[in-house]
Structure formats: structure tokens, C-alpha cells
């Protein structure tokens, strides 16, 4: 299994390098920036599936909430800054929006777990995977149209977080926003990995994803783990949304594309495989960049889909296999 994983990752890196040599580093840098964010989205989605057995169809809505909160926090501050400029505040202000968005995403996750999933879990666990999929479809429709009802359809976007001249890197104009987005993704992925490996809560989450009954037997509070898992997953999605506000202006259905890209990644990496999802995020981003560069804009959904279907024909458990194969047997 390990060898297949490394062959895939090695192949992706090789393709990225070859393409960068022939077309310039443009493809590589673009896939790194979006790939980092897809990795965050997909890791959250895989985590919730692994720990709670919920295939979350509303995952994109947390992304949308992230963009919305970041917009409403950042725009007033930047208006204030136009009147009384302050270099320190303008450097810090975007982070305020991004952090607050992450927190709101986490709280929303807690609310949804308490109000919906806990109720359903108490009532019936029959055909849990399919039923929660449909339940989250309802949540998605509700949140999208609730947002539409309250804030309307107009695009709420910003041109940039940091008003700094773009850097010139190997002949590519790289805005500071992109660099920071990539840095946020990297730091978060490392922190997330440390959290899952080193902390007790992280260990408890992994224990629950491996064996729910066993975890309960050694005294893990299932309800707490479930709540924290959904909070963490939705916070990651909101963080991705807030960090990418300059690329994805906020409107009610902005979460759809991140949602299905995260699903591409998760299916490609194997359902419930969190570390595979991180690698898969970069691979799918690379695939999309290459498709829109060589075949044309608009095709970046068609080609990866076809490829994923082909891959699944030969490896139904996903590219990297999956430790929690037992989960979708239910």
C-alpha cells in the first residue's frame, strides 16, 4: 500500500516538474496555492466521514460561511483604514477576518451536530450513511437559500487582502494574498497533523474512526469526540473559504465548487483517509490547472471526473487504499 502511495505522489511531483520546465512555473505555483486549500477542505471531509460516518454534502456551505464572515469583518476595517491609514492595522486586519471566520465555522459545526446529527443518532442508526447524506443535502439547501434570503445574490468580494506590490518569482507575478494563503494552508496542515498524532483529543478521534465500540470501552466520550470532529472539520472549511476570499467572492452558491472538488479528492484518496486527502488535494489541483491550461477553461471539471471514474474502475478503494474500509460496509 505504501509503495502505491509513494508512486502516485512521486508521479504527480514529476509531472508538475516536467510541466513547469516546459510551460514555466505558472502551473506549479497555481496548483500549490489552490491545492493547499483543497487539501484543507478534503481533510475535513475525510475526517468527518472517518470518525462520524457522515458523507457531508453541506461541507461547501462552511466554505461559504467562511467567505461571508471574512467579508463582513474585513470590509469595514478596510474602509476605516482608507480614512486613517495605519500600516500595522492593515497588515493584521485580514487575519482578524480569517480567524473570526474559522471560529464561526467551528461554532456552526457544533450547532449542526447538536441540533441535527445528535437527534438523528438518538432516533435511528439504520442506514446511517445514506440518511445523513440526505440530511446534509437538506442542510445545504437550507443554508444556501437562507443566505440568499438574508444577504441577496450580489457578489461580496474583495480584490486583495494586502495592498502590496506583487512579487516576481521566476517570472510569475505572485500576489502576497496567494503566498499567505499557501502559508496558512501549510501551517494548518502541519498543526492538524500534530493535533491528530500528539494530542489526546486527536488520538481519541483516530480511535473512534477505527473502532467506535472499542473507543467507548476505553472510556472515550463519543458525543464529545463527534462534536469536536464536526467543529474541526467545519472550521477548516471556513478557514479555506476565508483565506481564498480574494479568489472566490462570497455569494450563496460559492461553496458548490469547493464541495465537489473536496469530494473528488476524498473519493480519489479513499473515503475516510485523512492524510491521503491532503496529498490528493494537491494532485487534483494540479490536474485542474493542467486541464484548463492544455485543454481549455471550463473543462477542469470534466477531465478530472473522467479520470477519477477510470481510476476507481481499477482501484475501488481509492488511490491510497483506506484504513477504514469497514465504514462504508454499513
Amino acid at each position, binding site marked *: 500500500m505504501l509503495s502505491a502511495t509513494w508512486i502516485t505522489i512521486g508521479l504527480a511531483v514529476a509531472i508538475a516538474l516536467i510541466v513547469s520546465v516546459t510551460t514555466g512555473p505558472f502551473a506549479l505555483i497555481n496548483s500549490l496555492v489552490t491545492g493547499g486549500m483543497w487539501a484543507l477542505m478534503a481533510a475535513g471531509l475525510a475526517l468527518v466521514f472517518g470518525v462520524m460516518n457522515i458523507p457531508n454534502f453541506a461541507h461547501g456551505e462552511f466554505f461559504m460561511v467562511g467567505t461571508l464572515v471574512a467579508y463582513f469583518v474585513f470590509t469595514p476595517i478596510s474602509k476605516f483604514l482608507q480614512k486613517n491609514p495605519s500600516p500595522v492595522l492593515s497588515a493584521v486586519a485580514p487575519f482578524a477576518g480569517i480567524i473570526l471566520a474559522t471560529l464561526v465555522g467551528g461554532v456552526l459545526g457544533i450547532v449542526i451536530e447538536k441540533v441535527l446529527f445528535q437527534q438523528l443518532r438518538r432516533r435511528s442508526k439504520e442506514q446511517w450513511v445514506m440518511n445523513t*447524506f440526505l440530511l446534509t443535502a437538506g442542510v*445545504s439547501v437550507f443554508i444556501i437559500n437562507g443566505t440568499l434570503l438574508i444577504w441577496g445574490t450580489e457578489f461580496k468580494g474583495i480584490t486583495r487582502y494586502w495592498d502590496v506590490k506583487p512579487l516576481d518569482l521566476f517570472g510569475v507575478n505572485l500576489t502576497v494574498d496567494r503566498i499567505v494563503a499557501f502559508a496558512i494552508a501549510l501551517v494548518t496542515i502541519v498543526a492538524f497533523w500534530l493535533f491528530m498524532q500528539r494530542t489526546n483529543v486527536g488520538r481519541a478521534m483516530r480511535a473512534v474512526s477505527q473502532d467506535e465500540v472499542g473507543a467507548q470501552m476505553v472510556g472515550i466520550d463519543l458525543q464529545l469526540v463527534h462534536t469536536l470532529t464536526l467543529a474541526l472539520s467545519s472550521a477548516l472549511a471556513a478557514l479555506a473559504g476565508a483565506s481564498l476570499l480574494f479568489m472566490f467572492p462570497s455569494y450563496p452558491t460559492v461553496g458548490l465548487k469547493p464541495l465537489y472538488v473536496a469530494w473528488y479528492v476524498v*473519493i480519489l484518496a479513499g473515503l475516510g483517509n485523512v492524510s491521503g486527502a491532503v496529498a490528493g488535494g494537491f494532485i487534483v489541483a494540479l490536474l485542474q490547472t493542467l486541464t484548463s491550461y492544455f485543454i481549455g477553461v471550463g473543462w477542469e471539471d470534466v477531465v478530472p471526473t473522467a479520470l477519477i471514474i477510470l481510476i476507481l474502475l481499477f482501484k475501488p478503494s481509492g488511490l491510497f487504499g483506506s484504513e477504514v474500509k469497514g465504514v462504508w460496509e454499513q
Partner: protein
Amino acid sequence: MNTTETARPATQTFDRLSGWPLRLILLGLLIALPFIPPFNRQDLLRWLIGAALIAAQAIAFDFTAGYINVVNFGFAAFVGLGGYTSTLLALRFGLSPWIGMFVGAAAAALVGFFTGALTLRLRGIFAAVMAWFVGLALLGLTRNLTDLTRGALGLNAPTLLETADNLPYYYIIVAMMILTFVALRYITQSHVGLAFRAIGQNVDAARASGVNPTYYRVLNFTVSCAFAGWLGGFYAHYYGILTPDVMQTSHTVEVLAVAYIGGRGSLWGGALAAFPLIFLTEWLRSTLVDLPGLHLVLYGLLLILVMIYYPGGIAELIRWIQGRLRKAT
């Protein structure tokens, strides 16, 4: 969900009354509806047609979701595929829409067959997500093959009839809805339907008792997609405008919500739920124009409530009332 009813002599009179006479009354109501006052207006007739179209789609959707427990998240794409096939044949080769609708159904069935054959070996959730991906790919193809489909500009489909009157269309879609129901009901009542239900409840148990899950699932999926494509033909040749938007996931979710609110595994539940739901949403849309999305908020809320608190939906409610009446008689 499917309770086996043992008919005792005392309750037979009631059962006989609630069987065929009730069905005939409902059929009569459907036929007479366009002449009963508020519904004889052209705009309300359009709502009725929209409701019947959603009702028929919900029946075809429930045939997969409620019986083999595979949710076809690409359903709207198959509807769109049927519509586009029929429209393109009419525009390019002058094929009559009446025949084109059936060719559209065949095209949707063919793609459905391959989708099913590729994905239905996998577990339910995988199949649902893969069907969604196929739907997204079809949507992407329709958007990007601009030479063929004119992309987002859409196509002007020739209408089924010359007349601008909605009444004949109403009878056509009601006939299509009833035909969909009768055909799918016939299948689910046969031994094939028994196999479907066995697979839907427990795949491993079904396999152990000699039912080949993949065979029956692919069969079910193909039939459902064929009806989706056929209904898509009606959509195209009634509204006359076809854009890639018909294939969007939100349309699948709309049909899905109606089918589940109506009651999974009943076929008629979704059809029954469609009429009040579509009327409610159309009314909200036309009266509260400044509150866009309100009707969909209600859809989402209803779907959430049904999924958590009342998984049987409206069909379960009606069965409960029937049981009560039976005890009373």
C-alpha cells in the same frame, strides 16, 4: 417501511373501498382538475403541469432511492440528457419530438446503464457520489460542447403541439405520470421488485440468498434513468427552452426532497407530495417576489425534519390514517 397487511374479514369492506374506488376517484380528480375554478386559469395550469412533471420525476427517483437504496445524485443530468437528445434530433434531423422523447429515454438509459455498471458494484454511498460526478461531467460537457449545444445560451426546442393552450399538455404529462407509476409499480410488485427490496434492506443477506445485487441494481438504475430521460423530453418540448441549468445538482435535490417528503419506497408518496409542495413554492415565488429563496429554505427545512423525525414521510402518515380508519370500521 413495508408492512405486510393481513386482511381480516371485518376489514375487507374497507380495503375494497380504499383500493380501486379510491384510485378511480383520484384519477377522476386529476382529469377534472383543470375545469374546477381556480385551476382553469392558464397560469395555474402551468403550475399543475410543473407539479405533475416533478411528481413523475419523483416516482422514477424513488424507484432507485426507495427500493435499492441508491440515491442517484445525477438524476437531473439524466433528465437533461433526454431533453437535449430529443431537442438536438429535432433541430438537426427534423425528427418528431414524439419519437425524439423515446430516443432521449434510450440515450439516458444507455448512459445510465454504463454509469450503473461501473459504479453499482460499489457500496451505496460510493454509487451515489459517482452518479453525482457523472452528472457533473454531463453538465460540464453540455456547457463546453458549444458547437453542439450552444453552451449556456441554450437551445430553442420545438414544442410538442402547435397550440399555446396549456390544457393538452396537462393531459399529456398526467398520462406520462400515470404510465410511469403503473410501469414502475408493476415492476416493484413482481419478483424483480422483491429482489430490489431485499438488496435495499441488506445487500449481504440478499447475496447470500442467491440474488445477484449488481445485476438487479444496474437493471433498476437503467430503468429509472430511461424514465428520467423520457420526462426530460417532455420538459424540453413543453417549456421550449433548454439550458445546461436543467442538469444542475439543485434540481436533483428538488426532486429528491419531494420524493423523501412524500415517503421513500412508496412510489406514490412523492407524486402526492409534489402537488401541494409545488403549489406552495410557486405561490411563495409569485407573491413574495422580494424574498427569493424562501421556498427553498422551506424545502430544506422539510427535508431535514422528515429525515430526522418522520422517515416514512407523507406515505407513512397516510398509512397510519388508513390503519386508524380500518380499526374504526
